[in-house]
């Protein structure tokens, strides 16, 4: 265990009483509660934390926030490991382990660094120009390229953690709890608005957490505490720390992710790991602060080189020294205040290098008074060091070149600042355009297009006073717009700041040699994109912003270019000789920072991915050991194997039993729609192809439903229950769609019709008895229903009691056998089923599943919509002209049937296919060819839609859609199946009881 050599003796918002052990690259360290992994590493003197993506140069910690491009680590191990974590955002916990990525065998000695030596061969887009020969070798080149890329590793086991999702609504959502955000939340809350304040950091406060300033006369930390206490006292204000608002969608819909337990040791918290907040906000105040810009100078990537504000943050907030002799390189006065913070903490400043020829603000004078050398009109033209920056080569700036002799200034860290970029990502996502503000050399939010206000540093404010004032005003105005009538109170007051002098934009810092010929000017540190890469891209014509980005990969890393985009845009403009801002910006795409996939899924995983629908008899099927098949959302019993039976044997037994005795099947999943109203029959006439006017009460009729394109959409039996009362059944998978279809026509096209449709699928359990003994069995259990076929004929309906249970019985058949579909309340389903099974024992009743049901209907040539049809099949194709009314003037789909193609006589027709070898079952989905060739291609004339071994026909049977099939009757066709070709004969699609004699038993 090492000590913490770079830990400052005093200060910081760390709890020195809570020592935390952690490991980095398998070495043990200690830090304190309140540290981030980055601050703890710095306190331990660890500055080399990773390697660059492309050249594998040593990299350190560049920032103190979510914009970090460099310090990307693999966190944890095993099923909880997480790749590509920014060390600056990981709160330290006891036992944390992390490791560098992009390096092998170790971060100190990385073989990949050989890439750096050959870097001249790898300019931007080099891979588009090579690896093309021999053509077959790309897959081999690619194998190695893929292994070089990729940052961290995915876990190799499922995620053991849970995630949560929630909706929230508020009047005012404030994004960012820095000074502007806190002021906004206070103002809105005081006015009576429902407020949500979200901040990505571990605690609210933002920049104030590392500030020495005072507000309302209080030190910043005390003011934060007071503000939070006041918000906590409000009835409807919610403060969410560790919560990143990451996307801004239509109609003020903001998604946020709360890292509920990431700051705790793994598995130590019972709750979810993260929570996705889906917020519908009346108004949004964006107070997301600003991100400091790096300076683009030669070799600006060595460990120890970091943003000036980050250096000050590490010192003030974490009491961790980024170095002992820090050189400051900045073009603005703000960095001088950061230098002062370092000085006050006892850290040496080797010099301040400022390209401005004559900086003269009060802060500059103060620095000089403290004995620090200010090298005005100078720049850092290069750096040296191994594993850590050791010196800076400082030269005089002369126009856009450097002049004179370089002076090497020793340092172990460089604090750089090229100005600030307001964090406008969410504003941009909201649809608002950005405008370039030349005076501040930055992009600022333009006119909003949604209910959003931008305040504070995100709006370009630089002083604390301005941030507080803007935040307060935005909060008050948002509350008022949201209808809150209360008083927002006074804006918090900071001490007046001394005015800063303007910064001097310097988009590329010259060095002795031209850019690209000595040292590397990194712009995107994560993707290793340099100024020379950008210039090359422009030279090659990739000069629109998006081309530049895509060709160089600039800003495409996990940091999405937070520190690099504006520098790149400016350099592009400078290279093209345009004004900065004239070249446009790239699109800010959600998420603001990467969000865990699991958080989006929340609880909607595994069994909760999609609801499962079970019939009331599901438990019985389970006890009987039936396998289930998924049909839509339903689970349906597939077959009921007896010991030793496979599916083939079970289905053979079941199918035989139905035709010789009696079978029982659970048909509860069929869609059922109750249709009532005086115009119900008119509706049926429109949506079905046949005529319904003459259907008597108590009678049933089969119907075929078409889309307006004339293609079969659904089928089912509809029964007239009363004068104006019908019950429609649909296929299992289409129930919701058909109900929607009816409602669509009724509400939009025929609002005059007096018809009401109600889904009753789950109000009725359906048990169907099928087979010649069905009547005898049913007769034993009912006394009030006449079962004589003359009294209760096929296609009719009776109400009565079965086994003393109130029931509706329909004489309809999907097997061609005598059949009764008994419908009872779901709560009675099991009792009915058991009564039928018990009484049926002497008839050797057999339960059968969907597979046997399919075999039986195929024996009869009955279609299944979705199997014999696929959205391209008309009633005529199915040989079902008999059900298409010629008399009706119109119905849905009628006109389409008369189109040139749809009325062709040689379309694909539904036919039977009998394999030459009766024991050979044609493959379902097999394609039919008229003429076999040695090898493909072969012209196809159709395909097998259904195919089974039929125990009742004693042979294999199949149905197929075959081009011009009705004129091919008796022809031999061929079905290639793997390496073999099966010969088959075209027949009528009827294989059992073609005359239909068995319906009455």
């Amino acid at each position, binding site marked *: 265990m090492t000590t913490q050599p770079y830990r400052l003796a005093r200060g910081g918002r760390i709890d020195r009483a809570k020592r935390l052990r952690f490991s980095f690259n398998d070495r043990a360290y200690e830090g304190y509660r309140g540290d981030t992994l980055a601050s703890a590493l710095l306190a331990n003197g660890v500055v080399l934390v990773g390697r660059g993506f492309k050249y594998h140069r040593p990299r350190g910690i560049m920032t103190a926030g979510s914009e970090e491009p460099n310090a990307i680590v693999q966190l944890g191990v095993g099923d909880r490991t997480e790749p590509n974590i920014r060390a600056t955002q990981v709160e330290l916990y006891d036992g944390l382990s992390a490791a560098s990525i992009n390096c092998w065998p170790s971060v100190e000695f990385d073989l990949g660094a050989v890439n750096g030596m050959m870097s001249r061969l790898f300019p931007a887009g080099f891979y588009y120009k090579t690896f093309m020969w021999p053509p077959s070798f790309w897959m081999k080149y690619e194998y190695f390229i893929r292994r070089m890329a990729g940052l961290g590793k995915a876990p190799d086991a499922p995620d053991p953690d849970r995630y949560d999702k929630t909706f929230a609504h508020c009047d005012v959502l404030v994004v960012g709890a820095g000074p502007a955000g806190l002021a906004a939340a206070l103002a809105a809350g005081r006015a009576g608005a429902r407020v949500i304040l979200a901040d990505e950091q571990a605690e609210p406060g933002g920049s104030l957490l590392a500030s020495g300033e005072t507000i309302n006369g209080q030190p910043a930390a005390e003011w934060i505490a007071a503000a939070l206490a006041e918000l906590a006292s409000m009835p409807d204000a919610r403060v969410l720390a560790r919560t990143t608002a990451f996307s801004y969608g239509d109609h003020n819909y903001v998604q946020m992710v709360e890292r509920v337990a990431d700051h705790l040791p793994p598995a130590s918290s019972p709750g979810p790991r993260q929570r996705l907040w*889906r917020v519908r906000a009346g108004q949004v105040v964006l107070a997301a602060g600003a991100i400091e810009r790096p300076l683009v100078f030669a070799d600006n990537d060595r460990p120890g080189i970091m943003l000036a504000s980050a250096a000050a943050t590490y010192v003030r907030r974490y009491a961790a020294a980024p170095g002992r002799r820090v050189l400051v390189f900045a073009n603005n006065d703000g960095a001088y205040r950061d230098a002062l913070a370092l000085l006050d903490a006892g850290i040496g400043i080797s010099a301040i290098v400022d390209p401005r020829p004559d900086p003269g603000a009060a802060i500059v004078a103060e620095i000089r008074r403290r004995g620090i050398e200010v090298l005005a009109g100078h720049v850092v033209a290069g750096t040296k060091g191994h594993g850590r920056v050791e010196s800076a080569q400082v030269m005089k700036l002369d126009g856009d070149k450097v002049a004179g002799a370089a002076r090497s200034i020793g340092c172990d860290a460089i604090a750089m600042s090229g100005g600030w970029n307001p964090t406008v990502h969410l504003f941009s996502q909201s649809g608002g355009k950005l405008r370039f503000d030349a005076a501040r050399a930055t992009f600022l939010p333009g006119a909003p297009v949604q209910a959003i206000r931008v305040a504070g540093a995100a709006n370009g404010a630089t002083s604390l006073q301005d941030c507080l004032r803007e935040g307060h005003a935005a909060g008050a105005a948002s509350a008022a717009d949201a209808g809150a009538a209360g008083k927002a109170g006074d804006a918090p007051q900071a001490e007046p700041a001394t005015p800063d002098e303007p910064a001097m934009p310097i988009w590329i810092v010259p060095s002795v040699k031209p850019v690209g010929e000595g040292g590397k000017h990194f712009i995107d540190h994560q993707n290793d994109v340099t100024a020379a890469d950008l210039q090359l891209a422009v030279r090659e014509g990739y000069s629109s912003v998006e081309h530049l980005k895509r060709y160089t990969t600039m800003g495409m890393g996990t940091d999405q270019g937070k520190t690099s985009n504006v520098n790149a845009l400016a350099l592009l403009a400078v290279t093209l000789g345009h004004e900065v801002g004239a070249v446009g910006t790239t699109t800010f795409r959600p998420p603001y920072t990467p969000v865990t996939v699991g958080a989006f899924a929340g609880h909607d995983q595994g069994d909760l991915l999609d609801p499962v629908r079970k019939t009331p008899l599901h438990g019985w099927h389970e006890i009987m050991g039936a396998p289930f098949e998924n049909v839509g959302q339903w689970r349906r019993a597939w077959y009921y194997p007896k010991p030793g039976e496979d599916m083939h044997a079970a289905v053979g037994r079941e199918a035989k039993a139905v035709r010789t005795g009696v079978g029982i099947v659970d048909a509860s999943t069929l869609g059922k729609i109750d249709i009532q109203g005086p115009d119900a029959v008119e509706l049926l006439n429109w949506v079905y192809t046949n005529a319904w006017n003459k259907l008597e009460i108590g009678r049933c009729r089969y119907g075929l439903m078409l889309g*307006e394109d004339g293609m079969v959409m659904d089928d089912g039996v509809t029964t007239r229950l009363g004068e104006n009362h019908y019950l429609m059944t649909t296929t299992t998978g289409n129930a919701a769609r058909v109900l*929607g279809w009816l409602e669509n026509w009724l509400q939009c096209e025929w609002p005059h019709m007096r018809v009401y449709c109600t889904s009753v699928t789950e109000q009725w359990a359906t048990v169907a008895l099928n087979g010649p003994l069905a009547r005898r069995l049913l007769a034993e259990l009912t006394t009030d229903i006449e079962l004589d076929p003359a009294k209760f004929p096929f296609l009719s309906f009776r109400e009565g009691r079965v086994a003393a249970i109130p029931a509706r019985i329909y004489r309809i058949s999907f097997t061609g056998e005598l059949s009764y579909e008994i419908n009872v309340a779901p709560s009675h389903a099991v009792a009915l089923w058991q009564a039928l099974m018990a009484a049926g024992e002497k008839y050797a009743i057999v339960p059968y599943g969907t597979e046997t049901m399919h075999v039986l209907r195929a024996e009869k040539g009955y279609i299944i919509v979705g199997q014999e049809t696929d959205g391209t099949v008309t009633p005529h194709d199915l040989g079902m002209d008999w059900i298409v009314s010629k008399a009706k003037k119109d119905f849905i789909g009628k006109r389409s049937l008369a189109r040139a193609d749809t009325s062709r006589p040689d379309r694909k027709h539904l036919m039977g296919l009998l394999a030459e070898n009766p024991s050979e079952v044609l493959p379902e989905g097999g394609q039919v060819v008229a003429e076999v060739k040695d090898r493909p291609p072969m012209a196809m004339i159709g395909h097998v839609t259904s195919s089974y071994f039929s125990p009742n026909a004693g042979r294999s049977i199949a149905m197929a859609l075959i081009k011009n099939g009705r004129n091919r009757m008796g022809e031999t066709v061929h079905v290639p199946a793997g390496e073999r070709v099966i010969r088959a004969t075209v027949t009528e699609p009827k294989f059992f009881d073609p005359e239909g004699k068995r319906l009455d038993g």
Partner: protein
Amino acid sequence: MLLIPCPYCGPREEVEFACGGEAHIARPANSDRLSDAQWSDYLFMRKNPKGVHYERWNHARGCRRWFNVARDTVTHRIYAVYKMGEAPPSVTP
């Protein structure tokens, strides 16, 4: 995600709704007298405007009522909702 003001239920999240496409396409009365091309105009051809779109929505996971929406297909701004059978309001973006 859109926030859609159902004329029967008030503003609800888009996930409760299903979009039914272009509104005010009346089914031709005498379809048998139309040419294939005329019929296909009803069946398939759509305005698909870039800008204000008059479209049908169904509050499928709510009241199940259909209604009309005037929505901008570029900004997704909803200018008006109105019931079936009502005349489309004129909208100036």
